[in-house]
């Protein structure tokens, strides 16, 4: 039985109210989803430097135009070498910053003199395409202070990472979003 004080809800008003409700519900769901993404229980893709074989596929297999995999540098591990095999081409004609001597195809590693015989190397990440040439050079001759990581401000966190699908060493795995990086040189001393 309808109360005489309550006006009857016509079909149009019912549909409008329903649509508003659905929109609000959607907004709530979206907000909830965003909160869930940053709450720490979510997972993100990351490269394990201990498994990485520096194959170069990170540069070519990412769905982004420029890969989300970037070279990072653990300065505490670096030997600050004059002949840095992560910086110089194997057949470099001279140990200077001439383009023909540089290993990085985009010139993303910057070399600066510190004192004899030490040089500092910094990665200009926006230029880095994640090709891992420097990482392979560093690991082949040095201690691996140059290493690849997926940058989460760039990664779109695909459900199935296309680099992980192709990675021959199974080095790219889901890790907790609360601990999104696997950095070199952080292991406790044994």
């Amino acid at each position: 039985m309808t109360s005489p004080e309550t006006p009857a809800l016509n079909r149009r008003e019912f549909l409008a109210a329903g649509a508003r409700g659905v929109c609000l519900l959607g907004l709530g769901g979206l907000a909830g989803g965003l909160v869930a993404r940053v709450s720490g229980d979510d997972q993100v893709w990351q490269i394990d430097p201990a498994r990485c074989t520096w194959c170069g596929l990170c540069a070519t297999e990412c769905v982004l135009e420029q890969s989300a995999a970037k070279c990072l540098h653990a300065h505490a591990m670096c030997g600050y070498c004059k002949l840095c095999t992560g910086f110089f081409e194997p057949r470099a004609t001279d140990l200077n910053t001439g383009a023909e001597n540089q290993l990085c195809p985009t010139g993303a590693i910057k070399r600066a003199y510190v004192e004899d015989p030490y040089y500092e190397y910094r990665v200009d990440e926006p230029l880095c395409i994640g090709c891992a040439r420097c990482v392979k050079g560093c690991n082949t001759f040095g201690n691996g202070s140059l290493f690849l990581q997926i940058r989460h401000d760039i990664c779109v966190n695909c459900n199935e990472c296309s680099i992980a699908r192709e990675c021959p060493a199974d080095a790219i795995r889901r890790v907790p979003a609360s601990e999104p990086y696997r950095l070199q040189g952080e292991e406790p001393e044994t």
Partner: protein
Amino acid sequence: MKTNDALTRRNFIEAGAAGAGLVAAGAAAGWLVTRNRGTTPEERPDHAVLDYDLTELEKVPPELMIYNEAPPIATGLHGVTCVASGPSGTLLVGGTRAIKTLSVNGAQPQATDLKFTPHDVHPLPDGRFAVITRKRLIILDADGTVMVQADVPDGRPFLTAVTGDDEHLLIADAGNREILRYGHDGKFQMRFGRKNSEGNAPGFVIPSPYFDITIASDGLVRATNTGRHRVEAYTTNGSYEFGWGTASMAIESFCGCCNPCYISVLTDGRTVTSEKGLNRIKIYGVDGEFEGVVAGPEHLVRDRAEAERACEDCRVGFAFDVASDAEDRVYALDRVTGNLRVFEPRGLS
């Protein structure tokens, strides 16, 4: 003439909001599609161009080879760590909690069990052994009984090599980048190798835990200044005498961050060097001029991945420790097989 219904303010705002919403939704969809559309093969970098290829550098021109490989000697040890020339033509090999004395003439090997794994070993004239671990010098009698233990006085030591003469023991400390001198009684005497403008010493640059020393027949200590890609000579009192070596990937130079990793001195004073990265064992003359190659990467490393798995220090590369004998044979310690690889001068075999 019939006219349209008047557009009320409410209807106008509703229509405008709906339109803006549609535009925003379209923009968001476009952004998502653009970000996730994937790159075409043409848009991706050429993988071959990005390769880091050392294949050509791993080949040694045949005319530079001055040694032949002979059948290896099985050490029978697990986790081999070091090799040194022993008394009476023997070789000392260290491994997991053991030292083994091997005879190149095929005599029965003698094993000495230890409670620790040696980083390096050196025979003393009286039959005892000087052995180092990461932080400690230990002097053992011939049965392996510990006679003396001596800690490095201070700093953050990482001991990598021990050698000596009739009076002194000298120890390479990669952690402190110094050479430490002890007496045969295990008492610390002095340290040297820091940058020294008065003595013209360049200072040791040791980026990784490879720092080898040996004493040549001229009585001078030869040390690998790996970060400078040089071999340097010092008196046992720490006076810098001379050095040689250049840095490049070329066969006559030393490559990588830190080479040569190991050295040995032949009977006539020439130096045998062993490198990591591009595993090369080479011979240099008394004044440091390049003479030739004992073994190159293609001879030494048949499966690099397997070699790296077998090496506990593979994060800083792996190299072959070397020793030599009175006939200038070169012995290279193969961590993969646990064998001593034997190389003989051409003309000897």
